[in-house]
């Protein structure tokens, strides 16, 4: 599948998918989106790049073996979930309690509400990306 057409298409489509994933991630805590769905999108973009360029090129680019990377992503995601969930316990509030901050209006993005849950969501994103990528590399072997 590593034809010029696929590679050109992937070069255009993959950044679009990444941007969509980012938007879904940022609005995730109070609207449609979230860590899980943006992780799925990210993995689909990476899968597209794998198909277009082959796994070896990307591995060389990142200078790390995919299985190590995936495992690190997965574990750091889990730890991030535990830590962000447990911070309220130290402040004598129930597990997973969140706080939020309303940012002043920004150009293009408008008013943004940033909540503590976004860090938790980042943990979900890492965990899902790591596990889906390891499934992908397991199946593609």
């Amino acid at each position: 599948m590593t034809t010029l057409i696929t590679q050109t298409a992937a070069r255009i489509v993959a950044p679009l998918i990444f941007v969509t994933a980012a938007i879904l991630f940022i609005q995730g805590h109070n609207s449609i989106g979230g860590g899980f769905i943006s992780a799925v999108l990210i993995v689909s973009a990476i899968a597209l790049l794998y198909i277009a360029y082959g796994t070896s090129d990307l591995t060389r680019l990142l200078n790390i073996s995919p299985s190590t990377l995936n495992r690190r992503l997965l574990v750091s995601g889990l730890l991030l979930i535990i830590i962000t969930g447990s911070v309220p316990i130290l402040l004598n509030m129930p597990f997973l309690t969140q706080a939020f901050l309303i940012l002043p209006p920004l150009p293009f993005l408008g008013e943004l509400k940033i909540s503590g849950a976004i860090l938790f969501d980042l943990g979900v994103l890492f965990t899902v990306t790591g596990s889906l990528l390891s499934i992908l590399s397991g199946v593609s072997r």
Partner: protein
Amino acid sequence: MSTSASIVSHSPVLPLLIALLTASLTLLSRRSLKLTISLSLLGTCAYVASIISLLFSVQSGPLVYQFSAWPAPYGISFVADSFALLLLCIAAIVTAGVLVYSITTVDESKQKFSYHSLLHFMLFGATGALLTGDLFNLFVWFEVTLMTSYVLVTFYSTSKQTKAGMTYVILNLIGGAFMLISIGGIYATTGTLNLADLSHRLSQPDLYNISMPSVMLFSMILFVVFALKSGLVPLHFWVPIVYQAAPSPISALLSGVVKKVGLYAMIRIFFTVFPSGDSTPLGELSILTIFGISLFILSAASIIFGGISALSQDNIDNLLAYSSISQMGFIMLPLSLAALFPSIRQMALIATIILTLNHSLAKASLFLASGCIKNAIGSANLSDLGGLSRHSPILSISVFVSIFSLVGIPPIFGFFGKLHLLILPLNTEPIQTMYSSLFILILLVGTVLSFLYAIHLWNTGFWGEISSTVSDSTIPVQNQYILLFFTLMLISLGVGFESISPLIESASRSAIDSSGYIEAVLYHR
């Protein structure tokens, strides 16, 4: 949201966090096996300690924990009561035993891979399922537990395991889909997913505009799903396939932990949530009557079918799997009477809880024994064995005590379960001769059958001449100590039954205490 200034007790969420943290850390420490094992053991000890301390602190009443500080019917509640914690306590003990056994028997490369992490994730799922007070959340925890068990069943990825794994995964996915449908239906008809709120609304169906026939339909779908998960006849066919293919420590966990999660959910939903709505029957039939009658038939069929099938098995794992079907019948049979006759509800729950604890411990010990035999001799077929009692006495003593605890021989723990079963039909008011005599008949036939398969296992495998395959092999002693732990536990629970009976009694009381449950969750804060 606003946070109350009052001091929050975090103890109900502690076991969950310990299990999750241990699972994540054991995934991280891949370089050194020693580190993984010590982390895993440390995590298990902390988990057991947190469960036991929680078990004693809920004796005075359930502890409720609201995640994210959202109040009760809207946020997700965790309800730690003495019923859930007694079952969790046994799950923790069985998992700890299995873990210690696995350290010396599972290949080092496989242990490095993800074995410990998966065990802790399974414990994590079971903890969530037993503590949650929310119907949809229960489904999610079920899936967490099952997801890890899929991987563990197919752990060595042999062709036999892959085949069994396929059956197991497909059946559970179908079961999960039906569970989700019925949860969605219950939410659509009652407008709530919180178990306490559900119970509260079912007590006034007219006020909340609930159509009881729909609730009845969806509750029956839930019942079928739980029957599938706990392997009752005619939904038992996956049990022998999976138990025989899975690695022995995993079979021990499946029967000691995963099956018990399904049993817990059935008791929690049908005895804590639904009874409050039972005062408004639909014609002659109420939810609990239908539940009771169908459960009576299914569990009676399981006792007889499982017992007869176990008699003709040559493979130890198969025999144990069929015995598991029969024992699940024994565990469920008192529940059917409890559903039909409210006056003996607590007594029946006591019998169920004793039998559940007994089955978890005894089956764990038996499956681990079968694992020892398979590892050393290379075969679990009774025809290849013989004379094991002279060859490896510790193993044989454990098997003897465990299998006869399942039969119910005094002074072993299982005897008290059978005793409570037997006095049950005599206490129905007014005495229901049809149910009582059927009940006693099934009980007697089932016990005779379990006695016969126990004798079959013992005579062919452990007595008699030492066969050549047995005499050529040695079973490492360090693997057998953990069996001795389970055996001693069964005997001491039997001998010292008086000291544990208050715990069992309070567990049975909190399992059927709908109003206490509602009060604790909805009016706590």
